């Protein structure tokens, strides 16, 4: 491309950004001054990065964000139950682990495009959790929470640096909706809360913001699923998630994505873990997005805190997946584990990054990246990264990339399995990185996917 055409395309982009900014000037009027200031700063950073500024981090494939629309006006009326979704929608949200009947859930939150259409507690929560702790769990649209609780200024956009890259800047500047979850001291939510981000509009950039504050000694499991309607073909899902885990609290955060070709996925996660607390994250992607980039960063700041980050994903078609995770140890005697497993088919490219950085004594950690290549044109890269500033840290890693060995296949086939069954069995074993509490429908979906990938691989 010539310099002249580059300049023209930059001018076109900047004009679109100015138009977007005019709309957001009006939209942001509802927010308190401190939040507007953050958004304005993010806008400036985003524009600067579009002009060629240097981000902190350059992971993942770049795409032109200005081709997408983040500010779609709300279309759908609020619904009173997930059962009001039509049959196709129900089937799609179930593939990402949502329980439409809410039998095994404490509550649900559904955002369609840019509108939160449903947010409520299940019968179980109303009968057994809320009578005991009337205001124990707060679930809200973060836009409303920011207007209502001024003290959130200490927590909002404090963990994910705005200028980390173009996508963190634009997600901060243009986010609409999302979830604010606040679990109060000592409240143990025994069943998971589910949040679903459903995309129904074409060329939509869905940019929710998720803020989770878990007070000391509380416990919560979250299932956050993102999927598009089958009638859509292109879109962007970008999200900033910030999670604060108080002293002795336990949080598990499950992200499940099912995006098809034509989608770009950029979820950014920052977590701060206090003394003796535990944070567990599972990322599962069963789709075939054009590109996905994820690099959740957990700061173990409290003494004796713990984090486990697992990711399990497929690279199919022409997907470009850049999936990583980092744990930063600044508290003493902390433990961390990162496990990443991927199955790569077609002409997909998978990058697996992992970093354990020990800045405090007594750190323990293990990092594992493994990819199984099931086609000749599939590509995988592993970048394990360990850093220790203290001699007593114990950090280990293992990385492995390879295809299924013929000997394993012949052994299974000699026992009466067809080649397809043998490939499926080995893949199933490879992906069985024990994830407790995997919703049964999602497990079935992964199983179905393994069977089809085995067919595709042969």
């Amino acid at each position, binding site marked *: 491309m010539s310099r002249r055409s580059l300049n023209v395309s930059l001018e076109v982009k900047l004009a679109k950004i100015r138009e977007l900014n005019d709309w957001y000037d009006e939209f942001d009027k509802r927010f308190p001054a401190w939040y507007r200031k953050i958004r304005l*700063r993010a806008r400036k950073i985003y524009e600067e990065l579009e002009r060629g500024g240097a981000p*902190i981090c350059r992971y993942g494939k770049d795409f032109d964000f200005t081709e997408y629309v983040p500010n779609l006006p709300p279309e759908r009326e609020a619904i009173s139950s997930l059962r009001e979704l039509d049959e196709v929608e129900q089937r799609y949200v179930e593939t990402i682990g949502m329980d439409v009947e809410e039998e095994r859930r404490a509550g649900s939150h559904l955002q369609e495009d840019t509108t939160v259409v449903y947010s409520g507690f299940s019968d179980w929560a109303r009968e057994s959790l809320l009578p005991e702790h009337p205001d124990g769990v707060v679930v809200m649209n973060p836009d409303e929470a920011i207007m209502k609780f001024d*003290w959130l200024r*200490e*927590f909002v956009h*404090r*963990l*994910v*640096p*705005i*200028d980390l890259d173009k996508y963190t800047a634009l997600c901060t500047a243009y986010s609409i909706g999302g979830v604010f979850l*606040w679990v*109060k*001291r000592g409240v143990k939510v025994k069943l998971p809360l589910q949040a679903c981000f459903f995309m129904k509009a074409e060329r939509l950039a869905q940019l929710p913001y998720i803020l989770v*504050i878990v*007070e*000391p000694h509380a416990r919560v499991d979250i299932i956050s699923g993102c999927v598009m309607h089958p009638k859509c073909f292109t879109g962007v899902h970008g999200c900033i998630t910030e999670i*604060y885990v*108080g*002293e002795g609290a336990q949080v598990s955060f499950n992200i499940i994505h099912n995006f098809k070709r034509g989608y770009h996925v950029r979820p950014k996660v*920052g977590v*701060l873990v*206090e003394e003796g607390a535990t944070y567990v994250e599972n990322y599962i992607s069963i789709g075939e997005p054009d590109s996905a980039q994820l690099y959740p*960063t957990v*700061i173990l*700041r409290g003494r004796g805190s713990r984090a486990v980050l697992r990711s399990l994903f497929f690279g199919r078609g022409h997907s470009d997946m850049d999936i990583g995770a980092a744990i*930063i140890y*600044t*508290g003493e005697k902390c433990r961390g584990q990162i496990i990443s497993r991927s199955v790569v088919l077609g002409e997909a490219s998978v990058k697996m990054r992992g970093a354990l*950085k020990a*800045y*405090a004594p007594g750190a323990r950690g293990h990092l594992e990246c493994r990819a199984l290549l099931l086609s000749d044109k599939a590509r995988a890269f592993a970048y394990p990264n360990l850093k220790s*500033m203290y001699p007593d840290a114990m950090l280990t890693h293992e990385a492995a990339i390879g295809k299924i060995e013929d000997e394993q296949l012949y052994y299974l086939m000699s026992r009466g399995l067809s080649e397809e069954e043998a490939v499926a069995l080995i893949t199933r074993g490879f992906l069985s990185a024990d994830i407790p509490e995997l919703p049964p429908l999602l497990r079935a979906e992964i199983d179905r996917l393994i069977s089809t990938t085995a067919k595709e691989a042969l």
Partner: protein
Amino acid sequence: MAGLRRDARPRVDPERCIRCGVCVRVCRAGVLELRSAGELAGLPLARCVVARPGACTGCLRCVEECPARAISL
């Protein structure tokens, strides 16, 4: 040693700081401190402050290690 400056003073940008405490851990001169600023929703609030600016040797370790690029000298 090259790169060391007697007049160096680190500055922490409070808007960028993610209060992780990495700089406090890597500073060998004890210049930076994560100081408690009370509690909100049961979570400790911390502020990264330049507690002993005079002790700074200008080694740049804090600048290099800060994951949010919040420190400048």
